[in-house]
């Protein structure tokens, strides 16, 4: 009798473990806000997002989550998400959503490429939108159900670098990276070259500190230490690609500004308009992720999804500049607008 009981309990435990999925994942929180079902068949489409950082990290996770929600509201889709996922659990999480019958999986970052490709091969009927995926990724998907949403990393770097080159007074600027991704490296190079070019036009020799990697998108305490170290090296404009680590950096910059009595060290935020979140933010490089996600949703509804790279550039409006703070003098803001126009019509740095 006892043995039978023990066996039953073990069975129950094994089944519940299998149902729960892996690691530190949260139960998908569905915000069922489908205003009108999208297609003529009356079907309610569902999109799920996985994210390794938190959706309230004040940076990347927050922007991508908001983008998905905005696009879902416009197209009448249901949403779900799992955040703060460990790298080892990317694939498992994606597959859980696939098994639950989600139509579109949104993976906001280059780091999910391998997991997405693996899942895409096993689920040919499900669409996978990979933000910051490489141009070569869609062709690697045998079933043609992967699309890369690729905001132009170099242009992103230019947008921030031009303002940094104009605003820096110590002629040293800094960039904090999260993980060593191709898109992060692209942003860094764009940032460096734009700042150097713009600085040269102003008669300054602007130097960018070597990129540092926190290897995490959630360790804001590392951001604090990096920012302090970089400020000690003289950096007075910061940009980054590291979500919550950038938030930590901004905290350290605000403290330093408070200690010195005036805002002398600045930060440029991304990928959403974060003006007002921290005192040191002078501007934001904005990526219209919701536009990109919306395009993917439209393609899924029309059955035309997959196998391509959708670019995001200044020219097609996916990349833009957020509100500029009062800390930026009017003449500089005007010069900055001039450079932005050059970037849009293709004459920047020529």
């Amino acid at each position: 009798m006892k043995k039978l009981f023990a066996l039953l309990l073990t069975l129950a435990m094994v089944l519940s473990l299998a149902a729960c999925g892996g690691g530190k994942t949260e139960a998908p929180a569905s915000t069922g806000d489908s205003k009108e079902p999208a297609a003529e068949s009356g079907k309610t489409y569902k999109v799920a997002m996985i994210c390794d950082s938190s959706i309230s990290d004040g940076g990347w996770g927050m922007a991508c989550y908001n983008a998905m929600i905005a696009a879902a509201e416009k197209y009448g889709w249901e949403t779900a998400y799992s955040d703060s996922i460990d790298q080892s659990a990317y694939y498992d999480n994606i597959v859980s959503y696939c098994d639950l019958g989600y139509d579109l999986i949104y993976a906001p970052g280059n780091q999910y490429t391998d997991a997405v490709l693996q899942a895409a091969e096993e689920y040919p009927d499900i669409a996978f939108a990979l933000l910051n995926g490489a141009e070569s990724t869609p062709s690697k998907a045998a079933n043609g159900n992967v699309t890369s949403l690729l905001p132009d990393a170099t242009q992103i770097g230019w947008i921030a670098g031009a303002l940094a080159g104009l605003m820096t007074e110590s002629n040293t600027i800094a960039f904090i990276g999260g993980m060593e991704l191709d898109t992060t490296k692209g942003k860094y190079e764009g940032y460096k070259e734009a700042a150097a070019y713009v600085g040269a036009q102003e008669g300054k020799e602007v130097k960018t500190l070597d990129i540092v990697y926190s290897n995490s998108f959630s360790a804001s305490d590392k951001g604090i230490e990096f920012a302090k170290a970089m400020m000690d090296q003289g950096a007075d404009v910061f940009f980054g690609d590291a979500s919550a680590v950038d938030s930590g950096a901004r905290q350290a910059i605000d403290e330093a500004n408070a200690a010195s009595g005036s805002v002398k060290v600045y930060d440029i935020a991304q990928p959403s308009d974060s003006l007002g979140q921290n005192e040191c933010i002078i501007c934001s490089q904005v990526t219209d992720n919701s536009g990109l996600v919306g395009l993917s949703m439209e393609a899924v509804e029309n059955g035309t999804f997959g196998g391509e790279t959708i670019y995001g550039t200044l020219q097609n409006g996916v990349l833009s500049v957020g509100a500029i703070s009062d800390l930026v003098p009017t003449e500089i803001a005007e010069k900055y607008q001039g450079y932005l126009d050059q970037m849009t019509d293709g004459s920047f740095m020529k």
Partner: protein
Amino acid sequence: MDFMMNVILSSVRMATPLIFLALAELYSQRAGLVHIGLEGLAAIGSLTGFLVSLITGSPLLGVAAGAAVGILVNMIYAYATINLCAEQIVYGMAINIFAPALAAFIYRVYFGAGSELVQVGLMNSLASMLGVTPTSFIGKLFLEQTPMVYLAYALVIFTAIYFNKTKSGLNFKAVGEYPKAAATLGINVVGVKYVACVICGALAGMGGAYLTTCYTTTYTDGNVAGRGFIALAAVIFGRWSAGGVLLACLFFGFCDALQIRLQVSSFGVPYQFFQMIPYIATVVVLAVIGMKKAGPKGVGKPYLREER
């Protein structure tokens, strides 16, 4: 020289949560209970500190709440390992899985699915309380710290005196070394073990709360970032003495701070080399001086009163 001074200032900042966690582990191990669940206790302490600080506006209350919650959660471990004589490592791991998940859940329930960055006010440093702005290295080192840092060092001194100079401390250590002998002397072994669990929970909760009340203004899942396990290593390094534990934590803090500063100031060297520094240092030091012989002999063994 400037570089070194900045590294030292950084390492004091980064070592403080480790000191709290390592002291928690020290008290626990000295009573014979090995606790590998510090990571979980710190996580729930960090969330509680953040929430209470946000709601009440007082970081001090946040720290106190963190300690209280740490004690509560550790009581699960205490009951399981002391009364039910369960395997300590297993329950420590269970706390490691349960507590951070609970913290993440509570965070999500309280803030909803909203994705705004919530920031909380930090504790004031001694310098700002006194109204001074120190510019010298010594000034910055001693004055620009939050009260929690001073508390950590005071606790180290207190622990050293307690274990080595007081009768109560000696009884405490006896429980960890050979509880049966301690019991024959009339020491309440179970009582002492429970007290150890309370202290461990409180200190670990405070260590976690330090992260969100005195260090960063935001809470993110996983902000403890392995410090619980580093604290465990620090206790072994430090040969189970308060002073040794302090030096071990400062050493770890130093390596971490060095790694960050080196990444910033050197060009061209792959950053992975610098990130390895704290862990290679750990392995080297543990290999050289990490002999388990110095530890309490009765650690890890459940205390069964009826056994001969």
